[in-house]
């Protein structure tokens, strides 16, 4: 029993070692880069911490983190299955577009209107991702290729319909879908100086559901099995092909949620200025958070923090690109640090098991001799 505890303790230490190692490495590399540009790195950190901890910054960061987190969840579902859904970007955009169209075309009380919009988005996202899953199992098309292409196709479809006289309306030099009625506005959490999106609650629920389904259900076990070893999963009775489609559909449905905080909380329509690229950010955040629901939440907040404070760095005379560099460095450091720690942990464990058993064997050898 004490031994089992020791293993757990080691596991905990290793678990903390990886992010710590990553942060130290990332700060070191970033400092060097800032120093090379001829600026003082420590002043930069000072600025970031000061500005990032202001209360309006905090609200901004949380609001920014919500879609990032949902996007990371969508990507992580694929990762746990060993699928690289690079198409979350296209999925959330086409999902948000059609959800905006459906929502703009009806006037219902909020408790019907909002769920209809959300479900529409999830269904459209699921279909869009499902196409890639279907292509993979029927034709063997790699999901990386198909989802990238579906991103482009999705963008074109939106471009086609988002025109005056089709599904869009012209307003100034912008085109957008009809504005959602007031009943479709999602609730907000009143905070100072600005409110936090109510969608943060949905994001938290989604994170909890992600953890529960993957770790506590039969389905989640099957999914993780396929991710760890497709051959073992097939032998254990998982229908691998069906699991590929199911997980793509789930990933797409989650991706469908990504655009919702914006649609139901800020823009209330899908226009040419609807945010793009959150799907790709989600990949970085999923990597950073190691597909762990809490880790990804922290990563999403960190991302928001960097973006928020990056703008302030510009005012202080730092290069604008520095934030992008920092983000890239962090992701690289995290991926490398986790891999190093994982390998180290595996090796230590194997050695421990070996030593333990060798000790047992020696003992029993002695027992035989003395017997």
């Amino acid at each position, binding site marked *: 029993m004490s031994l089992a505890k020791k*293993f757990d303790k080691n596991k905990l230490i290793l678990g903390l070692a990886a992010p710590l190692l990553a942060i130290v490495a990332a700060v070191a590399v970033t400092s060097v880069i800032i120093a090379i540009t001829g600026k003082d790195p420590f002043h930069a950190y000072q600025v970031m911490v000061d500005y990032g901890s202001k209360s309006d910054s905090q609200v901004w960061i949380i609001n920014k983190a919500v879609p990032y987190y949902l996007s990371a969840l969508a990507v992580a579902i694929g990762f746990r299955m060993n699928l690289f859904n690079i198409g979350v970007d296209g999925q959330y955009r086409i999902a948000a577009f059609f959800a905006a169209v459906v929502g703009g075309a009806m006037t219902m009380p909020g408790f019907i209107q909002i769920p209809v919009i959300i479900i529409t988005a999830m269904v459209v996202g699921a279909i869009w991702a499902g196409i890639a899953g279907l292509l993979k199992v029927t034709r063997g098309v790699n999901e990386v290729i198909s989802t990238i292409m579906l991103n482009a196709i999705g963008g074109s479809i939106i471009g086609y319909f988002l025109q005056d006289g089709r599904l869009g309306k012209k307003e100034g030099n912008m085109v957008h879908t009809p504005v959602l009625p007031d009943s479709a506005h999602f609730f907000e959490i009143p905070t100072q100086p600005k409110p936090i999106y109510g969608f943060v609650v949905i994001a938290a629920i989604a994170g909890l559901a992600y953890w529960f389904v993957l770790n506590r*259900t039969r389905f989640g076990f099957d999914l993780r099995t396929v991710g760890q070893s497709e051959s073992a999963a097939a032998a254990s*009775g998982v229908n691998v092909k069906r699991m590929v489609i199911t997980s793509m559909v789930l990933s797409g449905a989650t991706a469908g949620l990504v655009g919702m905080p914006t649609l139901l909380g800020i823009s209330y329509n899908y226009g040419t200025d609807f945010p793009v690229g959150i799907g790709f950010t989600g990949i970085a955040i999923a990597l950073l958070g190691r597909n762990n629901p809490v880790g990804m939440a922290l990563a999403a907040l960190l991302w928001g923090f960097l973006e928020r404070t990056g703008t302030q760095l510009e005012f202080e005379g730092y290069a604008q690109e520095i934030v992008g560099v920092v983000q890239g460095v962090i992701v690289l450091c995290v991926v490398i640090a986790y891999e190093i720690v994982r390998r180290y942990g595996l090796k230590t464990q194997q050695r421990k098991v070996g030593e333990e058993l060798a000790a047992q064997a020696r003992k029993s050898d002695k027992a035989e001799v003395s017997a």
Partner: protein
Amino acid sequence: MELAGITKRFPGVVANHDIHLTVRRGTVHALCGENGAGKSTLMKILYGMQKPDEGTITLDGEQVTLHTPGDAIARGIGMVHQHFMLADNLTVLENVVLGAEKLHGIGGKARAKIKEISDSYGLGVRPDAMVEDLGVADRQRVEILKVLYRGARTLILDEPTAVLVPQEVDALFDNLRELKAEGLTVIFISHKLGEVLSVADDITVIRRGTTVGSAVPSETTPKQLAELMVGSELPSPETRESTVTDTPMLTVEDLKMSAVDPDGVVRDVLGGISFTIRKGEVLGIAGVEGNGQAELVEAIMGMRPLDSGTVTLDGTDVSQAPTRKRREDGIGYIPEDRHRHGLLLEAPLWENRILGHVTEKPNSKGALLDPKAARADTERIVREYDVRTPGIEVTAASLSGGNQQKLIVGREMSHLPKLLIAAHPTRGVDVGAQAQIWDQIREARHEGLAVLLISADLDELIGLSDTLRVMFRGRLVADADPAAITPEELGSAMTGAASGHLEHVDEQEEEGGDDA
């Protein structure tokens, strides 16, 4: 060559400790010990693939340190691995010169050298044949030639007979004697006593990672050698009384499956297989690997679709049922390749206990997992099946092969299967685990389990089976009574030389009578 006090602490289980080995030039020196005794580790040290923690290696009176296989080759040590390292899509010539182009180029000179080596040791290698067209024995000769071509004077052969049928083993031994006659030294690793005694000049026995003794073949009986290896009485796979009943448990009829081989030719991998296994019966299938055994298993498990044929389990047609349904209905599966099909190597033991039985108790309640019950049951399996592990939270990868296999056997037996498919159940498993696994199969058979046993170990097959079939090129070509057959007779059917019902012939000429 002399090894003294070699100790290797190794992530895994068997640590080599304090090994002493002296090999005389121009002899065949056999290194024997059970699976997992540490033979392969020792050879890897000798070949420079691993560095010993303690101890010295002396070659011709000179103490050496081998950092890489390159060092070993430079000192005239060559290794023929258990798993061949040849490129299928190249010719023999190309395979031999690959990586050794500097020696004799890649053209006429190399060809001449290959011919010369081949002729002087009687290897009979054709330089221009494609490796993919060669049989196992020929490939092995190419591997030997590869090593000789690089100038080796000492050859290490790691379990060279594991993949050969008895007739091919004899041919290999003739080659080894030729090598010896030319003054080369051969280190021959094996755990098969008969072979060791027939070919070796000296024998060193390893047990639990250390050298426990040496023997001279002419003065040693197999039994004495066995006891040295095992440390006690050798376990035997023989089953005592028959427990075969009349109730069919698994019936397969006319299974057909075809596959497209790399050349684009459609080939029958299963050509109309039919058999019945009754309750309490062990049906053994002998055959050289790659003759359709893996496909047969996957067909019964529902992992690969059949072209035609039916699979009936306990009176129910399961031909169309998915794998999970078949497992729930009572098929237990000990896969041939436990790393690919039986385990999640990076997952903890208790998750591995769930693998394959996620829908069954105690692993889940309804759609939810029950990690608590699964953990508790894993503890039970670890205890009852003697899985040597410090706990159930360690990953499956940190266990030794034998302990991994015991966990798999424990898991499959815990769901009281009606049919157990055991593909090479004791491959790469140490002797203690081997005896336990045999015991468990026997015990379960006693309680009415039907077993489909596929093995390359002919003694295991003959010892455990109630009925024997021989598989060759996707067909069951022969059957035999395990009580009255020798491994040699089985071997000739495995190469396709005999078919029908094999009768034991006491005379010198061994031939399967075609009295079907």
